[in-house]
């Protein structure tokens, strides 16, 4: 009964065939999404840590101020990376799930559109911090705080859209009550824990990256390194712990039929859930032990675990998606007409691009050292 009403509302899949088998597009979506998350975590995590550092700083030259100055220099390039790496998964998502994604975007039209405007201001905010720095004087902290808030807003809109696209049952009520694109998905119990999970995860992973950076500096005899390691590992450890709890809250906020998939309903999903928990605890324990070693931390294991954890989380996210949509979404039934030449061209160009970028960045890195 419900499905019959829903199926009149849910837009039909596009009349044109997919230009590659769905699994290929799906793989690229997940892969680029992982890269996007890494960049986003470095950016958002770094900015939040910078804000805390500015607040705790007592003078222009203390540890906190040095830390904040260092990170602030990286933010603009990280925005570029985050945006660039975000475009690709969004493209593949629209190809595979446009029926859902376009619809939820329209329901939250202004909110979704706001992302563009807000991003421009937030981006310039990072350049102000990077280029002007201390010369901003009194307004340095408020500008940074606003920049962080703007990025948090962007993330919040993404969480709204990614959850609203699953709330097919709510769509008709929302749209027919008000079509002006003013909705958000605030009534969804998973919204807040999911968003919080993402933001805390970003700071934790951002902390881990900071620890790596500090470690490298320390090895080169830069005395700012040790403090970076400490702040980084602290954030990583404690926020991972908090995030395990938030993750459980997120889990409890899912509808019971989706939750059951992770509790035996779907063996693969259940295994993933178990692995995720174990990895989470493992990350915390290793982080805790790492703290004891000061600037001589060992980061390889916690980093490996974190990356695996992110892959597990991304995959679980997809199980949740399918759990919500059920029979409404059947990518296996989409018509496919593979554009073989283009697929090959894409991968060849991608390899070429990666080499070109590595070459350029390496040149810059080496020359930076010499100067």
């Amino acid at each position, binding site marked *: 009964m419900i499905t019959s009403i829903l199926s*009149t509302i*849910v*837009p039909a899949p*596009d*009349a*044109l065939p*997919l*230009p*590659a088998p769905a699994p290929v*597009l799906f793989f690229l979506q997940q892969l680029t999404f992982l890269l996007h998350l890494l960049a986003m975590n470095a950016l958002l995590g770094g900015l939040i840590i910078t804000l805390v550092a500015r607040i705790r700083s007592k003078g222009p030259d203390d540890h906190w101020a040095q830390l904040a100055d260092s990170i602030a220099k990286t933010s603009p*390039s990280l925005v*570029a*990376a985050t*945006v*660039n790496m975000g*475009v*690709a998964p969004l*493209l*593949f998502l*629209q*190809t595979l799930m*446009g029926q859902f994604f*376009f*619809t939820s*975007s*329209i*329901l939250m*039209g202004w909110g*979704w*559109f706001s*992302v*563009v*405007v807000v*991003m*421009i201001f937030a*981006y*310039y905010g990072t*350049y102000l911090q990077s280029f002007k720095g201390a010369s901003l004087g009194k307004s340095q902290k408020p500008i940074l705080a606003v920049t962080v808030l703007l990025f948090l807003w962007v993330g919040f809109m993404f969480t709204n859209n990614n959850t609203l696209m699953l709330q097919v049952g709510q769509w*008709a009520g929302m*749209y*027919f009550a008000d*079509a*002006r*694109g003013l909705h958000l998905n605030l009534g969804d119990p998973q919204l807040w824990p999911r968003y919080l999970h993402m933001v805390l995860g970003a700071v934790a992973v951002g902390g881990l990256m900071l620890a790596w950076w500090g470690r490298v500096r320390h090895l080169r005899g830069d005395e700012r390194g040790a403090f970076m390691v400490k702040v980084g590992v602290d954030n990583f450890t404690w926020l991972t712990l908090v995030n395990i709890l938030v993750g459980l809250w997120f889990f409890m906020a899912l509808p019971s039929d989706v939750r059951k998939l992770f509790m035996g309903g779907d063996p693969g999903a259940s295994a993933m859930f178990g692995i995720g928990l174990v990895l989470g605890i493992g990350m915390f324990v290793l982080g805790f032990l790492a703290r004891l070693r000061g600037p001589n931390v060992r980061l390889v294991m916690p980093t490996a675990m974190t990356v695996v954890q992110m892959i597990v989380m991304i995959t679980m996210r997809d199980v949740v998606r399918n759990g919500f949509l059920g029979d409404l979404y059947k990518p296996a039934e989409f018509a496919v007409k593979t*554009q073989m030449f*283009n697929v090959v*061209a*894409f991968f060849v*160009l*991608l390899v070429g*691009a990666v080499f*070109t*970028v590595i070459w*350029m*960045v390496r*040149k*810059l890195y080496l*020359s930076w050292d*010499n*100067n």
Partner: protein
Amino acid sequence: MNYPVWELSMGAGMLIAVVSILHVFVSHFAVGGGLWLVLTEARANRQNDEEARGFVKKHSRFFMLVTLVFGAISGVGIWATIGLISPHGTSALIHGFVWGWAIEWIFFFVEIAAALVYYYGWEKLDRRTHEIVGWVYFISAWMSLFIINGIVTFMLTSGGWLENHEFWTGFFNPTFWPSVFIRSFAGFGIAGMFTLMTAANLPLGDFRTRITRWNGGWATVGIAGVMASAVWYGRSVGVWTENEALLGAIPVLPKVVALFKIGLVATISLCVIPLLLPKVWNKGLVPMLLTVGLLTMGAGEWAREAGRKPFVIQGYMYSTGMLVADEEALAADGMIAHTKWMSPESLTDEARRGQDLYAAWCQPCHTTNGYNGLAPFLAHWNEETIASLVPHLQHMRALMPPWYGTEEENAALVTHLMSMKPAEPGVMPADRQAARIKSFAISCGLCHTPNAYRSLTDFFTDMNAEEIDEFLDDAGDMADEMPGYFGTEEQRELLIEYLDAFDEVATRPGGSES
């Protein structure tokens, strides 16, 4: 039909126009400016001109701040906006061209990395490597243009793709090459304009004169190139050349094209000043040049968009998402059967039925009072007039997508249109001649122009007022596609006077494009 429609009081077209005109100006700068940077840098290196190097370096910071931030984000912004306003069109383009977009993303990736390395590499990288990075930037930026150009031009001239649905047929469509040239030259021209701005801030002197002349050269050559390739472009747009009558149907289109031409002449006239008289060039002229350039670019993009209607993808999909291939089914089943987003209340409530139909099939292009607003027309119409027009919407010269309403659906739509009517009836202009023109515009003028599209001149030249009056009684018998006449006494009198003295060219009041 498939997707819900975002109700925007300003009008969907307006939002797209604002986002895209700004983006397009900056994104062309991102391409042309890249070439300007490397060539000017190389020239400075060759001539050991430290002043020029310093200028390039300084400009590159401005360049990065404008293109990486505003250019890149507003580009993503256009994409988000068309997804909101034309989800079906975006979805179709993505399905046909996702690999094009994916490859464009690769170039975007290299472009951004190169821009950052170029900027942060000043005085760090050796000069040769720095130049190479600049070239990497320009080539990848230009390749992005090349690829997006294939997709954008496809929408207007889908060409052979309609038969075979092949990626490369759609990509290298009839306007692909002229458009690549227009856009590349526009990029070089805009690069010249922006660097003229930077140059105007330099202290007066020999260097300023030199660099101003060089930048003026860029701007002039760029705009001249646009002019030449625009002629070629105009000849390649099949829908324009093969069907001139159609052009007459959209009076605003020739106007926009004319605006574009005038804009180009104005822009190039301003551009030759710094080239020929570099000493005269000053800060005061900069805003003028940039404004004229921006407006010209806007007119060009507007003409391209306007020329496409009523399609999103020429010959394949209408602006409402209706597929040409589905038309027969729609004609047979009526509209509701093909409208996903009908509210439960619409089953029983006629007004709501009309509202939902309007939202799905009219709102993509119309607003009540804003962009392409209907209220100013509805104010002058009685129910008979509206009811007579609804079954004939696709015959209006506006080139609207077909509307295959059943009798019941037409009645519902009329009910809704009546509810959009302003409380105050429309007032005719006080000036008699203006009132006559208006009376024509709100009736016959919806489908005819006096002497271009479905011309009426011949028909009415020899008729007197009485005969015209009789004609209006039976106007509905004239052609199947044509409704009867139901105007008020006042409107009718004015219309008769207008048709009787058929010599003035009527213009549509309050009309706009979508």
